[in-house]
């Protein structure tokens, strides 16, 4: 009787012990996961969340009466926003239009290139490698240098203008530098890899037996492209357009080097000059914040409308 009781107690004890151990193990597991994300979270807090908060509070600073240049005091001056929107709404609009045109142009150039390398040259690794290196090699040099080079290419003595003038597409006194065309060219060129590489990565996985099946089911090569290849590569196109549009909309290097500071100004340029030339920290911060919110809104609408979830 006593023995049974002891055993029963013992059994009870082990059960409790085991479950406690299990709970502890689970807790430990959960805690390990938390520990693992701490570095990432800390990084984001320090280099993303904090700057955004600083930016947000700075955008509401006010200039006290009789202050020196660049002297502002903390405040909640919401009129900073209305002031900059009234002054620069056109520039915002232009930035998004430029970024949009550059994204479309990069898609029209990048997709066929990605298709050529990933589908047409499939199995010919040497050719694929050479083309990919050629595409990416220019991007080992500096962004500014590459944009400067475009200034040369589009200059009045350069080959493009000479040819365009000769075939009378451009009037004899026409220019390409310091035009909207040059800025969009620069944007397209500089962000092309961001368009091409995601599409390439996607098309590289395309099962070519699907293309054969489509041909077998009476679809011409063109129909096959629009009914099979393109729909299947939409996740790549989606990623590519986002990766091109977002940095292009906020870019200021192309507009400052290839534009004319008047009717080609992009919002990045304005923010740059408000920060470093006019020393209007609240105005520049407000512009940055508006840009961020607008891009976020546009991207969210885009994702909602064309999100890849529905594709598969």
């Amino acid at each position: 009787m006593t023995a049974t009781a002891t055993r029963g107690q013992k059994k009870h004890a082990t059960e409790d012990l085991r479950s406690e151990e299990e709970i502890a193990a689970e807790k430990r597991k959960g805690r390990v996961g938390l520990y693992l994300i701490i570095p990432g979270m800390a990084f984001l807090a320090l280099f993303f969340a904090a700057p955004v908060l600083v930016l947000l509070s700075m955008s509401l600073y006010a200039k006290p009466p009789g202050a020196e240049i660049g002297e502002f005091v903390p405040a909640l001056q919401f009129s900073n926003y209305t002031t900059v929107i009234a002054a620069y709404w056109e520039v915002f609009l232009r930035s998004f239009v430029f970024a949009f045109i550059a994204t479309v142009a990069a898609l029209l150039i990048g997709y066929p290139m990605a298709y050529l390398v990933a589908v047409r040259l499939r199995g010919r690794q040497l050719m694929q490698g050479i083309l990919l290196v050629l595409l990416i090699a220019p991007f080992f040099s500096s962004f500014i240098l590459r944009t400067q080079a475009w200034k040369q290419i589009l200059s009045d003595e350069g080959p493009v203008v000479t040819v365009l003038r000769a075939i009378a597409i451009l009037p004899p006194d026409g220019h390409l530098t310091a035009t909207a065309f040059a800025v969009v060219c620069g944007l397209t060129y500089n962000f092309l890899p961001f368009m091409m590489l995601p599409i390439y990565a996607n098309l590289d996985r395309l099962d070519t037996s699907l293309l054969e099946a489509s041909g077998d089911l009476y679809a011409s090569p063109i129909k096959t492209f629009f009914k099979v290849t393109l729909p299947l590569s939409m996740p790549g196109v989606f990623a590519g357009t986002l990766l091109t549009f977002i940095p292009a909309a906020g870019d200021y290097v192309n507009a400052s080097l290839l534009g004319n500071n008047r009717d080609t100004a992009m919002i990045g340029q304005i923010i740059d000059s408000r920060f470093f030339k006019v020393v209007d920290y609240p105005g520049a911060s407000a512009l940055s914040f508006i840009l961020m919110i607008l891009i976020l809104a546009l991207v969210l609408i885009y994702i909602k409308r064309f999100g890849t979830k529905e594709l598969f």
Partner: protein
Amino acid sequence: MSTTTTLKDAAQAGVSTGADLHLKNVTKRFTEFTAVDDLTLTVPSGAFFALLGPSGCGKTTTLRMIAGLEQPTSGSISIGGQDVTKLPSFQRQVNTVFQSYALFPHMSVLDNVAFGLKRKGAKDHLARAKAALEMVELGHLASRKPAQLSGGQQQRVALARALVNRPAVLLLDEPLGALDMKLRRQMQVELKAIQTEVGLTFIHVTHDQEEAMTMADTVAVMNKGKIEQMGAPRDLYELPKTAFVANFLGKSNLMHGEVIEDLGDAVAVNASGHRLVMPKNRSVAHSGSAIVGVRPEKMSILNLPDDYSHTANMLTGTVLDASFTGVSTEYLVEVPGIGTIGTFSQNMGQNPAQRGDTVRMTWEPEFSFGLDGAEQTTEGQDAV
């Protein structure tokens, strides 16, 4: 039966009921090797034709050339009397069931099946696609995506997607290869039933000899880009003309020897001291060097009376291995001068021979077949 009505409806809505297929001197050379070597072939309309051979024998390349996915290096292909050699795949009245199914992952099952009809501009494409899905008993899954289906279901969708177009010729590229044994057997029966119903010309590529023999009216055994032998499954099995066919299609015992006597309708062959008789009309060789072949199940082993009639062919040897499988016992018997002979005896309650026993094996001369003596007896034995 509802399946039958759906099938008939589908057939009435269709255009063709199959067409003849001719391949004339078709050769396909790749940089490294010749995949198909001067192949000439006629498949009559409405036939269930199997191209059987080991991997790399050129059967899939042949199929791809018929589909228009591969261009022959030389030769011509015609379907229903029309030369289609230069026609791109999308203009040929041919549909393929791909080995990997190649279903479009971004489309629903119904859209997959309707794809070909839409391209042809058929007005009632959705109704016909639905009927085709009913035919393969997948009507209830029409709105699913292919990834949500099992392998067997995907296989049926691929079949429906090809069949719904009523092609002149339906090509099947190892369509059952990815299915497990049980499902494969079931699909073999269904495919055969569907083909009988719709009466289309089916060309079925497979390396599975059992599958080819169960399903096809005509089997062509391919090896190294050429057709070794073509005929009804039973004819091929009972009377192989080459060592490759004898070994690839089922199992055979092949024995080298010299023709020593002409018996009128038959010849006698001396195979390492054994006198073996085979009918002339079952032999490729009537004189000189020859190979005598016999299928294992045609042989009798054990319990022979001592005065056994000597009209039968007989071999004496030592049992190397006996494995009891229930229905029968399989033996490997070492015959001096000839080699290892495989045979089995049905389980009729007798005591099986043991390893090391000396046994006699006999078979009636009319079961022998004769091959060219210049061939290797091992040809095609390890081919898969």
